[in-house]
């Protein structure tokens, strides 16, 4: 793990759908190796921001990871530059085994000759990831039969074997038990040793324990930025959240636009 750490640098990012501006000129910097939490009320544009960074939606402005511009590249190219993400709903391949899931994630650079052969044994990076995410004992189990938390870990594991340098996680602990949250948080800390991590999360308790820096989005703009303490002290943040209590443990249930 000697690879260099990169930071994410977003400048004046704008995304609009049919006249509705979901992200309205966001600029932010995530330092290499940071664990940055993105929070904000529903409709703040958090997921859209991640969508824009990963090429899922068209956007204007600039998104640089290290010294590479990401905007304008197709999804799979951005992915090959080391940018990986998870989704709010778990998106593992449920009809493949844990091992197959990880093996696919590890293989984007494989040649066709390799692809067209059968897998023999367990590739090193896959074995390593299995240990890190704690699913080594379930390698041959179908991913669809995993518990919810385990699926989220598998997703993170897939990003690890993919060897991404920037992880964008969309509500990774939603619906998890306390024990699972703790395990996930520790996993993030371990991962961030040689990667940059951005987390969208509503769970304030989880945020307080594991966030290194926080960006608050509101109505498509950056409202506040800083450490957990700084952000919590910001009166604008308190105003925005008034009437929107976000308690620890309450799973978000409404649509975020």
């Amino acid at each position, binding site marked *: 793990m000697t690879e260099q750490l990169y930071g994410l640098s977003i400048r004046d990012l704008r995304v609009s759908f049919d006249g509705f501006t979901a992200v309205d000129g966001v600029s932010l910097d995530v330092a290499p190796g940071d664990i940055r939490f993105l929070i904000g009320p529903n409709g703040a544009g958090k997921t859209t921001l991640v969508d824009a960074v990963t090429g899922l939606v068209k956007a204007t402005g600039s998104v640089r990871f290290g010294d590479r511009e990401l905007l304008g590249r197709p999804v799979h190219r951005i992915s090959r530059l080391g940018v990986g993400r998870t989704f709010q709903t778990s998106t593992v391949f449920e009809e493949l*085994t844990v091992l197959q899931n990880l093996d696919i994630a590890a293989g984007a650079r494989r040649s066709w000759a390799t692809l*067209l052969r059968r897998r023999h044994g367990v590739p090193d990076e896959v074995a390593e990831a299995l240990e890190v995410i704690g699913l080594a004992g379930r390698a041959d189990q179908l991913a669809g039969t995993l518990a919810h938390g385990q699926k989220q870990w598998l997703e993170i594991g*897939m990003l690890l074997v993919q060897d991404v340098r920037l992880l964008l996680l969309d509500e990774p602990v939603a619906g998890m038990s306390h024990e699972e949250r703790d395990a996930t948080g520790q996993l993030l800390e371990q991962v961030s040793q040689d990667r940059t991590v951005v987390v969208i999360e509503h769970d304030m308790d989880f945020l307080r324990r594991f966030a290194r820096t926080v960006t608050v989005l509101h109505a498509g703009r950056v409202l506040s930025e800083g450490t957990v303490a700084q952000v919590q002290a910001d009166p604008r943040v308190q105003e925005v959240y008034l009437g929107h209590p976000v308690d620890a443990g309450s799973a978000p249930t409404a649509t975020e636009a």
Partner: protein
Amino acid sequence: MTTVARDPATDVDPTPPVEKPAAGPSRHRFRAAAGFALGAALLFAVAPLVLSDFRLSLLAKYLCVAMVAVGIGLAWGRGGMLALGQGVFFGLGGYAMAMHLKLADAGPGNMPDFMMLYGQLDELPLWWRPFASPWFALPATVLLPMAVAFVLGSLVFRRRVRGAYFAILSQALAAAMVILLIGQQGTTGGTNGLTDIQGFFGYDLDDPVNQRMVYFIIAGILLALLALTRHLMQSRYGELLVAVRDGEERVRFLGYDPATVKLVAYVVAAGMAGLAGALFVPAVGIISPALIGIVPSIEFVIGVAVGGRATLLGPVLGAVAVAWARTALSERFPGTWTYLQGLLFVVVVAFLPGGLASLVGLARRRTDGGRRPGPLVRLRRSRVEAG
């Protein structure tokens, strides 16, 4: 984007689960080898002994349909691409073969009979000429469909035309192809198609012994295609294809281009359909637009659905069973076949989406005592698009 949690219990999975090795690889392989030997014995020894010449030639025809089914199983069952226009590729292969055989029947320098009757052409059209050579025509039966599939597939998959859109487009392609063929009666035989094929590389097709030879070639090639498909399904590519089926966007985020992954399966399926069409010609002696339109293209799919779309053998057995049922039932109850065919579609697809193969799986799991996590557990579909 939906963040409303869907209840996994009600969110029924659309596609039947992939077979999973039941035990260690060696046992699995042994089972496969045994199954393969059994199939070969049935096709090469039992069938020719038990069946009359006429029934054997019917079986040869069914096996051609089964070849198309193997390809559809790969593209649809594993890759999620509902290829409703396989008749196009079947037709391309069939016409390529029939054109060569017609030219061979006519003899060097002569034109096929129908061209003189209907086309009043003075000389062979330019695009027919290469087919006089078996060295061109034989590879063309496979490569031509693959090339067409490649062009169409690269256009539509790259633009992320999928699901229903893809199915309807491939159907429209079949319709367009039929109209084109019929419109060029002088050079394609129009609705008649290419008929009255006498010889197959010098062998008289009227001779029952040679018909039997054609049957053996078809059976052998079907077995070879099954072996190839089994290998593809079990390779890393096969796993990737399932992943694309269940979460195309997710695969994209892993750094693959799903279009390429799908393209390979689609092109391979097209090649198989082409080969099947080419072998259908000596077996039945005719290729015509009636075999490649929308209706036959959908009928190719029904066998696959009945047998079990995501399995290796399901499509083959399903295709043969449906084709056989059609012949048997329409002999005994002409006219009612349509009802049965319709019912078959409705019942199997609506109530038994895994096809008959899922019944086998169910029985097997029962004997296994439920030790391994059964793929029958209704999994919820990965909803990556919802991201």
